[in-house]
């Protein structure tokens, strides 16, 4: 079975997550060997996924943790008697 580009795109996310079966993976790999468009789509998607996972993209607001724990301390103290 030969698969086309659209078919590859449908499975790109699962492919990146290692969530495709061996047969499909082999088909996709074979397609990628000769299709530079799908290779670029796969590589760019994977690159986006890697960049998003970096903690520097989403940082907690400055002082977030301090304010949270201060509020918590206040609440823990209020509940002390209960």
């Amino acid at each position, binding site marked *: 079975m030969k698969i086309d580009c659209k078919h590859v*795109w*449908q499975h*790109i*996310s*699962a492919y*990146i997550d290692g*969530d495709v079966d061996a047969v499909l993976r082999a088909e996709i790999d074979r397609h990628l060997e000769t299709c*530079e*468009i799908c*290779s*670029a*789509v796969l*590589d*760019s*998607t994977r*690159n*986006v*996924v*890697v*960049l*998003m*996972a*970096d903690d*520097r*993209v*989403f940082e*907690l*607001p400055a002082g*977030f*943790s301090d*304010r*949270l*724990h201060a*509020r*918590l301390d206040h*609440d*823990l103290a209020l*509940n*002390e008697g209960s």
Partner: protein
Amino acid sequence: MGMVSNPASEAECIRRILAGERHLFHELIRPCERPIYFLLSSLLRNDTEAEDAAQETVIKVFRNLHLFRGDSQFRTWVLSIARNEGLGRLRKNETRREDSLDALTDGEAGDFTPAILTSWREVPTETLERQELGSLLRKAIEALPEIYRNVVLLRDIEEMDVRETAAVLGISEGAVKVRLHRARALLQRDLAPKLKAFAPKRGKLFGWAR
């Protein structure tokens, strides 16, 4: 801190808090702070309200700790509480919101065709030292419809597995996979053409289609 890192000692920590060692709660909740805040920020799209909702969530977790049954991960339980807190606030603010929660459903057609490129040079994570790249990524995620934004946040940003993501959002694992796929396709289409400017320049430029 090792004490709260594995499930058995997390249970022990919870038991001791309930037995009166309340100060231990600070350490118990610390690993959940980041996902709580970003889940709420993704729902509420307002930093001040997200922080307030995050504090409210943590207080609720503390007050309801005796209700935690241990049949799910502690973090999953905490994030469900955060999500409920966020949804409650959204309902109150309904009129201010332009995109209603169920504006888009899984069945709905959308254009998930990727950006077509003929070659790709990887943008290394070191590039994130540059403020513009982070802000580009954040904007792209904020522009996603809500049902995709939450899934990307939990799966790709907080790196939770499919099962936990499904549990937090109250959807099936299949729906998590479909939504994640669509979200990544939308992000690739939005970002790939812009990210090319961040790729390291070496040798001659390849032809970037589009």
